[in-house]
């Protein structure tokens, strides 16, 4: 018994069809929709949100065992041993994603009305955003890996289109392509995982795969797990497929907030959580997830400490926070719920801060360099206060949302392995440091710019910072409220809610209902708080105290140098893979023309004595061949007719 008989659930495909229709209209009409395209795009996102909220309400009121609902829509493929349906799985896990995607998505649509107001192609931008919403919803509601993959590559396409939205900028175009190609390396993993599932289980429907999961041979399950992890690394920018995310900041800032912080990049975490049954059965693969998460968590934090570009610093932070989620997803059991909890709170506070950064850029002539900012708090009050809420949330200030969600992960990491636990704590310290640096460089300290009417003896950049319009600040305020309260709101609840999906094996183990108290009684929580305080202190010592910040970055120390170069991710990829491979393609092209074609043409010429004729042909004597050919046809025809008579 589930909810599939209710009207809202039986038409659940509308959830995806609505934004898809919006995208289709906006993209087909193009500039004809210039005047109203942004309103349609936003209305469509809001409609999806309302639909999602209704689904959630209906599910919330239903008894726990009836909540998970599979809605079959039509038969996608029915060939040989394959039976794949186009069906939607709306359960406790996917419904939270629906709310996050459509909720934060709607806010970012509203924000973009103001942010993209001066862009000629604004309605196309909204078309792409709608396309993204539709694909992302498909990703999280699909009831099979194959259908999930439709959404998975769909968000990849939307991400490509939006990163390179300003295509006339070569950097944006290159970044979009890089993101897509690196994601495809991950996608290869998903394709192989599905291939293995078809050959072992005979199906890629979640229900059949998970029911059979513990009968899959461990070696196979491990392989499937690692292939899924490869996919997750691509989509979620985890080491070793992380290098595209920093470049992706070339896209408009609302895109960075929605796709490259709050939703799409967390899809890897979703897939691993969804595939819990496989990873529970493949401990080695689960360990791989934890290691990848830990390494990325530290790598991203490192990058975050040394970037002067506010968006890139936030992107490093995103990598790092997703690393936390991956860590939790790899630990598994009750920690799946922690991963999702952190995913949701991070969705709020990181979207909040990215949009805040966009608001800053809006007021600072699209400059992203924090060295040319400073002292903006006085000029952009709403942006500053809302950004500060995000800041307090991400560093885990008590009672703010990140405090709850991150502490659970740190505690779970200690329970899993002390080394991982210590890494998680160090990550918290570095987070506090780089976020304090960002706050101080951007909003406080001395101004490193001048107003147009002011004297400018030091040749500082001329700026006229101002607060952004209401369409931009209202989403900031809403997200700030969630950055503050989402943790308190969900802490008692989310574990219970997700339990039947993410950890069905332990039905009676209530794992973190008393989280609030635990957070203050657990010594690990206190140690973490002390480390966070140290991180803040360090940040303040280096960048606070009204210090002079040079406009140009001073000669960096080794650690900074490495961080600025993204831990040499691009250099390694280029030297190890890209350059040798491209040289290989040139070699293939040369061999194709020189050797293979040479031999073919040469031998044809020798055998048929045709080389002279070939030369004649090159000069264009086609008509003589026409005659020859026609004669040949007549001869063949005659032979056949004579054969008939004989």
């Amino acid at each position, binding site marked *: 018994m589930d909810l599939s008989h209710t009207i809202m659930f039986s038409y659940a495909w509308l959830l995806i069809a609505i934004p898809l229709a919006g995208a289709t209209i906006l993209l087909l009409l193009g500039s004809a929709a210039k005047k109203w395209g942004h309103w349609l795009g936003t209305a469509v996102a809001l409609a999806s949100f309302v639909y999602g909220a209704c689904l959630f309400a209906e599910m919330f009121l239903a008894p726990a065992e009836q909540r998970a609902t599979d809605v079959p829509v039509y038969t*996608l493929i029915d060939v040989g041993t394959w039976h794949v349906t186009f069906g939607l799985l709306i359960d406790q896990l996917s419904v939270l994603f629906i709310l996050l995607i459509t909720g934060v998505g709607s806010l970012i649509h509203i924000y973009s009305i103001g942010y993209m107001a001066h862009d000629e192609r604004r309605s196309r931008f909204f078309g792409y955003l709608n396309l993204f919403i539709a694909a992302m919803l498909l990703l999280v509601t699909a009831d099979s890996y194959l259908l999930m993959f439709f959404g998975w590559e769909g968000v990849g396409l939307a991400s490509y289109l939006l990163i390179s939205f300003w295509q006339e900028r070569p950097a944006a175009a*290159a970044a979009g392509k890089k993101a897509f*190609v690196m994601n495809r390396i991950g996608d*290869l993993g998903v*394709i192989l995982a599905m291939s293995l599932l078809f*050959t072992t289980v005979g199906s890629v429907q979640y229900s059949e795969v998970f029911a059979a999961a513990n009968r899959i041979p461990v070696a196979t399950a491990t392989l499937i797990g690692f292939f899924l992890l490869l996919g997750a690394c691509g989509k979620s920018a985890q080491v070793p497929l992380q290098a595209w995310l920093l470049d992706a900041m070339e896209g408009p800032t609302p895109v960075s907030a929605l796709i490259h912080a709050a939703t799409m990049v967390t899809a890897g975490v979703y897939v691993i959580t969804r595939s819990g049954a496989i990873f529970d059965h493949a401990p080695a693969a689960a360990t791989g997830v934890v290691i990848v998460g830990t390494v990325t968590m530290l790598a991203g934090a490192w990058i975050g400490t040394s970037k002067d570009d506010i968006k890139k610093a936030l992107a490093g932070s995103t990598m790092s926070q997703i690393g936390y989620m991956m860590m939790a997803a790899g630990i598994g059991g009750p920690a799946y719920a922690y991963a999702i909890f952190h995913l949701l709170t991070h969705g709020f506070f990181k979207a909040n801060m990215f949009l805040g950064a966009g608001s800053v850029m809006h007021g600072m002539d699209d400059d992203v360099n924090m060295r040319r900012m400073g002292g903006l708090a006085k000029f952009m009050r709403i942006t500053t206060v809302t950004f500060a809420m995000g800041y307090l949330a991400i560093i885990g200030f008590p009672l703010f949302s990140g405090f709850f969600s991150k502490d659970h992960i740190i505690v779970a990491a200690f329970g899993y392995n002390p080394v991982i636990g210590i890494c998680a704590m160090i990550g918290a310290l570095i987070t506090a440091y780089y976020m304090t640096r960002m706050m101080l460089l951007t909003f406080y300290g001395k101004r490193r710019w001048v107003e147009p009417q002011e004297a400018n003896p030091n040749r500082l950049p001329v700026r006229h910072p101002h607060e952004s319009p209401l369409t931009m600040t209202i989403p900031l305020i809403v997200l700030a409220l969630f950055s503050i309260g989402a943790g308190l709101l969900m802490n008692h609840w989310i574990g219970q809610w997700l339990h039947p999906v993410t950890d069905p094996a332990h039905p009676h183990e209530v794992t973190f209902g008393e989280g609030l108290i635990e957070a203050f009684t657990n010594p690990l929580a206190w140690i973490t708080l002390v480390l966070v305080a140290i991180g803040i202190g360090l940040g303040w010592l280096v960048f606070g105290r009204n210090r002079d910040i040079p406009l140009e970055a001073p000669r960096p120390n080794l650690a900074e140098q490495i961080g600025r170069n993204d831990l040499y991710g691009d250099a390694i990829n280029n030297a190890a893979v890209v350059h040798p491979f491209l040289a290989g393609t040139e070699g293939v092209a040369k061999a194709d023309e020189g050797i293979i074609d040479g*031999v073919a043409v040469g031998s044809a010429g020798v055998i048929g004595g045709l080389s002279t004729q070939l030369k004649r042909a*090159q000069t264009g004597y086609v008509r003589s061949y026409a005659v020859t050919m026609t004669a040949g046809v007549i001869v063949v025809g005659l032979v056949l007719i004579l054969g008939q008579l004989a």
Partner: protein
Amino acid sequence: MSFPLLTVLAVLPLFGAAVLLIVPKPMARQVGLVFALATLVLGVVTALLATVGGRDFSETLVWIKTFGAHWALGPVDGLALVMVLATVILVPFLLIAEWNTVDLDDKWSARIYFALVLVTESLALFAFLANDLLLFYVFFEATLIPMYFLIGGFGGKRRGYAAIKFLLFGLGGGLIMLAAVVGAGAMSARQGTLSLLYSDLRLVDFNNGFGMAIFVCFLIAFALKNPMVPFHTWLPDAAEEGTPGSSALLVGVLDKLGTFGMIRVCLELFPDASRQAGQIMVLLGLISMIWGAMAAIAQKNLMRMIAFTSVSHFGFIVIGIFSFTTVSLSGAMFYMFGHAFSTAILFLAAGFLVRRRGTAEIAAYGGVQKVAPMLAAVFLIGGLSSLALPGFSSFVAEFMVIAGSFARHPILAGISSIGVVLSAMYILGTYQKVFTGPVTDQVVNTFGADTRRDLSWRERIAVGPLIALLLFFGFFPQPLLAPIADTAATTMHQVGLADPTPTLKGNN
């Protein structure tokens, strides 16, 4: 005898070509399009009647008694169905795309071009519908003639060279195949009555050295057609020199005769030899796929790039055919359908570019999306279909090939999945070079500074329906997959192999 619908279907464009030669010249294009559209309608109706209606339109008449040859067409099974549909749907849109561009001079006028395209269509339809080996051979070979004139008469500067090269490779393959047809006839005669009907040949035992030799001859002939590495070098030249419409017709329809023959002739008539050759062919398909993709990445000419992507795609189709699972075989057939359209869109879009800028050199472009956003979108969409993005029919096909083959050859199929990365590189790399970045001066000089020279309505009509078709079958593949899967199951039965059982199901 019932109404010979299939003969009428295949003769209709030929008749149209004849009519074109007598109507007044200014009306020739309109008349040609009417015949192409009429063929489209008749083809779709036939397809619906044959699948949904379950009608059997087979015709069998004795043709040349001494050779055991028959005028035999049909039945329209899944394989014939997809190729007939691909052919009849593609042709009218190619004509629309080439509407204003093929009037070179009095000799090579649009009238001749349209007539040649219709002749090609007719011959291809016969080959796809043939139920007799000699009949298939005759039409397989006959397609060379109109195609030769399409390339040699209407192409670029080196068209003569490209056309003769195309012809020589084709004739070479044809000779080898003729020997094989004769051999097959001889073996059939030795084992009973001489008959070249497929249904009779399926009963002939080819399981000996001679039979193997015949099989290999067929295989080489088809590999020249597909074309597979290392027999492929005529294709980039032909594609570079032919008009975009001719190239689309060549790669989209005529080259499919190779993969079509691999299934219809190799698998169905030589099941034992096919089984033995299976693994080698999968390996060769894999080599073709990777070689074509890597060469495509390095190409500096748009048309050659598209030609090499097709070499790569044909590699995938061969992998699917010779992996002998219902899923991979169905995937290969579905691939043949979708590939016709995605390649056509790419060729036509590239043609729209070349027509404006005057060259196919990739380096001559830059920033085109700014002055021709619609053209950029069409090229990108064709490209996304080529790189098998979910939502396009090519994804379903490619995934069925990879994951279906995986059950038989996990390592080779696993390696083939690298194709999804390579295709992203050649498509998006080309898109980046041609369409993004600042608009170059040469592009402004030829396209104009605003979007006035973006796609015309005629050009939009030429590609729009093809895009819609790919998207429709990308989300709703089952209507076509159902007849395809029936044919794949029959072929599997003829090959004598059962699908590998999923390991867990086997234990139950």
